[in-house]
């Protein structure tokens, strides 16, 4: 507002104020740029969270987000889900899977929590109990690995 007051005075004839006005305006623009850069950078990190953690964010992270950021996140994941559903046939293609090129068909996994029964392709069921180890098909495990139920042992 200070600047505006000076602007009207300058228009009224006090030309020596022009430099002050321009200087203040530059400061204001710089502040605006810094604020927007900071906020935008946070958005980019929140976006990365969707790709890393999935649709549901851990509470500790949500605690650090403002209400508007949570809203942005929800809209982003909805937009992303709509897009992923539109490609790849009926169910869509989950682009957050298959992040790395597949190296082998079966992988060794360790169970981190009690999950219960798990059926694999040839009909057999496996009981996933905490700390049990299994040699399972990769594509079946990917979902559970991201949820934190299984751990890939390299």
């Amino acid at each position: 507002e200070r600047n505006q007051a000076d602007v009207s005075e300058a228009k009224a004839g006090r030309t020596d104020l022009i430099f002050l006005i321009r200087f203040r305006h530059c400061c204001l623009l710089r502040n605006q740029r810094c604020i927007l850069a900071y906020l935008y950078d946070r958005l980019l990190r929140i976006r990365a969270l969707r790709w890393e953690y999935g649709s549901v964010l851990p509470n500790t992270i949500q605690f650090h987000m403002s209400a508007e950021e949570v809203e942005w996140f929800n809209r982003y994941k909805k937009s992303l889900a709509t897009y992923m559903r539109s490609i790849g046939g009926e169910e869509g293609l989950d682009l957050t899977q298959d992040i790395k090129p597949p190296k082998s068909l079966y992988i060794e996994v360790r169970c981190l929590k009690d999950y219960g029964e798990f059926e694999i392709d040839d009909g057999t069921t496996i009981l996933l109990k905490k700390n049990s180890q299994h040699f399972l098909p990769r594509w079946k495990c990917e979902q559970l690995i991201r949820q934190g139920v299984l751990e890939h042992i390299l």
Partner: protein
Amino acid sequence: DSDAGSEELVLTPAELIRSLEQAWLNEKFAPELLESKPEIIECVVEQLDHMEANLKRAKKGDLKVSVHRMEIERIRYVLSSYLRCRLVKIEKFFPHVLEKEKSRPEGEPSILSPEEFAFAKEYMANTETYLKNVALKHMPPNLQKVSLLKSVPKPNLDSFVFLRVLERQENILVEPETDEQREYTIDLEEGSQHLIRYKTIAPLVASGAVQLI
């Protein structure tokens, strides 16, 4: 086995996967978002569904099952990687991508599929609303608008890329980088590999005359 939609070409599965891989590599190494290839995506998805259906019917314990399963995984990875790469570029350059699409002349192929276009618009609206509500509306009146087109960085078309020449090209004009240099022309021999500024060969990537590596 698979038809390329309503267009004239009928590609064998091997050729289809070849074009997917080419599109994937080009998209990976190009600094800007390339033309969208809905036909390839549609056919690959169809191919994957076809292979999955075959696998379900196959005898259990058949050795071929493992090999085909691996093949499906590999193809799915390439497809996902390709689409992910495009999404990353769309999000990174969203105001420019949308502007380019809006000012596209009739008849020129689109760089965005309809779904990608919807996604890009939603992304822009989402981000604009957020910035407005959190920061801009609290600012003095003359600072409340910000041009995302000017603030978000543009893709660097001058970045250098490696390429392999697929079709012989003659008289490609290379513009000078500094004031001391002058422009000159080069010929690209088939099979040769080069390191060159993307801007110079951008149209060749689009036409398929060169392959980025």
